[in-house]
């Protein structure tokens, strides 16, 4: 039936898929123009996967934060702090397992403080996490005395960053693991639905029996913990904890989430979109380096792409 076909065509909202379309176009463009530089080689592709892993992992949790109509600017600093506490724990000879627990707990604890200040003290998350961004990095500098804390455990270095299994970097496994968990929680679970309802209309969510403060608390704790994990991966990759890890990552993470199609106005969130958004930004950076552009030019192009993608992707809000 032609009318039915037309109906389903008009229901198909291509804007929702803008990031996938853009990603495919970017891949095609660079694979042609950068064929000689080896853009499409397995080595380069795995390289991109390694470079984007931390942003993707933090992005998965940030998707929940933004879908609930909050923001977390402290993720980059939490990554640095967790890297330092993990490295220091191992330096103290307390063993790898303890160090892993300490690293994750660091992120969880900072996330808890964020959530507490947002829900109980009612400070906007923008301000809370802006302040926490400074505090967490300050503590990281303080604990490390601004010097790198070396990590000697080979098991740790293998598991958290530098290892690979059958030629596939371990970072890719981490990314896939977190993305799959995030996808299931967002799309299939009670918690995901409640998060989206909280961001979409907090009053209606409350009236439906959802404890929206508990939801927000949980998303901040998850965001803190994933930032902690990302910091531990940085540490494993560079075989040391440094207070400079993750500087500016909060912006790349938010860019990846928004690029992926999650709404800054809350209520809409897509984990798969976030991962694609993150990989797309990584791919473009990688291609620009291959093309011989330097960091300053990369930044300009990255910013322009975010504006373009969001402009194309956003539906004009009804007045």
């Amino acid at each position: 039936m032609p009318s039915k076909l037309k109906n389903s065509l008009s229901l198909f909202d291509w804007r929702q898929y803008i990031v996938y379309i853009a990603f495919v176009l970017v891949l095609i463009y660079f694979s042609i123009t950068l064929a000689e530089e080896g853009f499409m080689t397995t080595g380069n592709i795995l390289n991109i996967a390694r470079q984007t892993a931390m942003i993707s992992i933090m992005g998965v949790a940030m998707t929940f934060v933004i879908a609930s109509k909050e923001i977390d600017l402290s993720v980059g600093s939490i990554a640095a702090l967790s890297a330092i506490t993990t490295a220091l724990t191992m330096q103290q000879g307390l063993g790898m397992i303890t160090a892993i627990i300490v690293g994750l707990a660091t992120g969880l604890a900072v996330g808890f403080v964020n959530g507490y200040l947002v829900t109980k003290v009612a400070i906007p998350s923008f301000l809370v996490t802006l302040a926490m961004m400074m505090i967490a990095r300050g503590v990281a500098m303080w604990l490390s005395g601004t010097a790198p804390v070396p990590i000697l455990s080979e098991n740790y270095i293998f598991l958290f960053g530098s290892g690979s299994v059958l030629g596939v970097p371990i970072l890719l496994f981490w990314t896939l693991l977190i993305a799959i968990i995030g996808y299931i929680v967002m799309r299939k679970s009670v918690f995901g639905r409640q998060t989206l309802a909280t961001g979409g209309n907090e009053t209606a969510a409350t009236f439906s029996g959802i404890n929206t403060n508990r939801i927000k608390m949980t998303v901040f704790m998850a965001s803190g913990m994933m930032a902690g994990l990302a910091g531990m991966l940085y540490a494993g990759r560079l075989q040391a904890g440094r207070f400079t890890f993750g500087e500016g990552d909060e912006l790349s993470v938010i860019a990846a989430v928004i690029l992926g199609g999650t709404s800054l106005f809350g209520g809409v969130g897509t984990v798969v979109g976030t991962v694609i958004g993150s990989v797309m930004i990584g791919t473009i950076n990688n291609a620009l380096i291959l093309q011989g552009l330097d960091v300053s030019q990369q930044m300009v192009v990255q910013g322009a792409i975010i504006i373009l993608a969001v402009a194309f992707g956003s539906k004009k809000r009804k007045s």
Partner: protein
Amino acid sequence: MNHTILRMKEIEKAFNGITVLDKVNFEVKTGEVHALMGGNGAGKSTLMKILTGVYQLDEGSIEIDGEYQQFSNPSDAEKVGVSMIFQEFSLIPKLTVAQNIYLHYEPRKAFGMINDKKMVSDSRKIIADMGISISPNDLVENISLGYWQMTEIAKALSKNTKILIMDEPTSTLTKSETKTLFSIIRRLKESGITIIYISHRMDEIFEVCDRITVLRNGTNVITASCADITMEALINNIVGGSMGQSLKWIERPIKENRKPILEVKHLQSGSRVKDVSFTLYEGEILGMAGLMGSGRSETVRAVFGVDAISGGEVHVRGSKKLIFSPKEAIQEGLGLVPEDRRSQGLVLEHSVKENTILPSLGALSRRQIIQNSQADEKVEALVKKLKVKTDDIHKTVSLLSGGNQQKLVLAKWLLNDTDILILDEPTSGVDIGAKAEIVEIIREIADSGKAVLVVSSEMTELLAMSDRILIMKDGEITSSIDRKEIKGEEEVERAIQVEK
């Protein structure tokens, strides 16, 4: 004094083919306070929106001071001296009284700079003329709500208003603030300003108005001088034959020895709920009537755990419960269809299904994972049962009509198998067809043994479905009347109007 300042003749207006005003005539004399009355949907606000240029008339004419006028937007109406004070205030709390009065009309001096001195002194003069004591330099957020209203009036006066329209001006005022307002109205009248006063409160109208015009179903019913009409006659005119065919009362059998399911005892909450006690039985439809601002919505919000309770008790199924949040209320088997479905009832950007299952996620999930096929099935069944017009349960609810959206808010609680359903204005902004359907759904819910508490300003629907009606006035339940003993709408109208 007998000069006619405003003459609206044979006004006709239709929305989407539905006639809202049918040849309405409305005349107001210079310097009088003219009450405009009528039930919900009578056409009062549409008529006033035409007069203020918000809507354009389809047929008819408007004459002001003998000159024909055509308003294509609100500023056209303001230019010839027509201003309206709305129920919702349009003030900016962070600005001063004077800055609010002259918002967008700030007096200027050289280089387009705002002349603050003139603005303050002009404001002071207007305020003094009104006979009230606020400083033009006070921040609006620091003055009481009653004075917000006065500031709105001052704002209108600053624009050389000749005709001032007030829509339910006392609904947010305390008794003493109401008195102040009336003395301002008398002063304005003496200075030659004409006032159109929209209100449901009869006692106020008899106190302050000179003449009354009543509309019903978009037509004129009567225009009379206040001195010549009794309250009884006025109520009869407003209500008319509107005990309509589509919303007739069907008597429901009352079971013997039915159990009380919800008992509210001396409930206090905020400033609006002072001492509320009532009992709701299984299978009962209990109506709650009262004027705007009498504390009905606040009562149900407190029972449902939205607003904090400052005194009194709530008993569910015979035992005392402490309910601090909607979540706890829902666990006790309560459900609330809130006053404003768009801001409180639905997540507009989400789908029919996603909205409907929201309170029932626990029951529809296994180990925290939502069982989608089971959820789809249940939602499909409900959509069919409630005759929700949507082609797909995955459609965004913002695309549905008001009546269908309201049915979904009801569906949320039907899916959750709620025992005690509280409905706050369940048919507001819903067309007459959907209204009858919603009344029918509510009857079915009660027939299945559940208890229903309905708050409504629409007497017709309240009388159509209630077994018993509570009258609420100034934060207290003043009486409880069996539906059987009520002969007509007039009786309930009188009960909610009369002083204790």
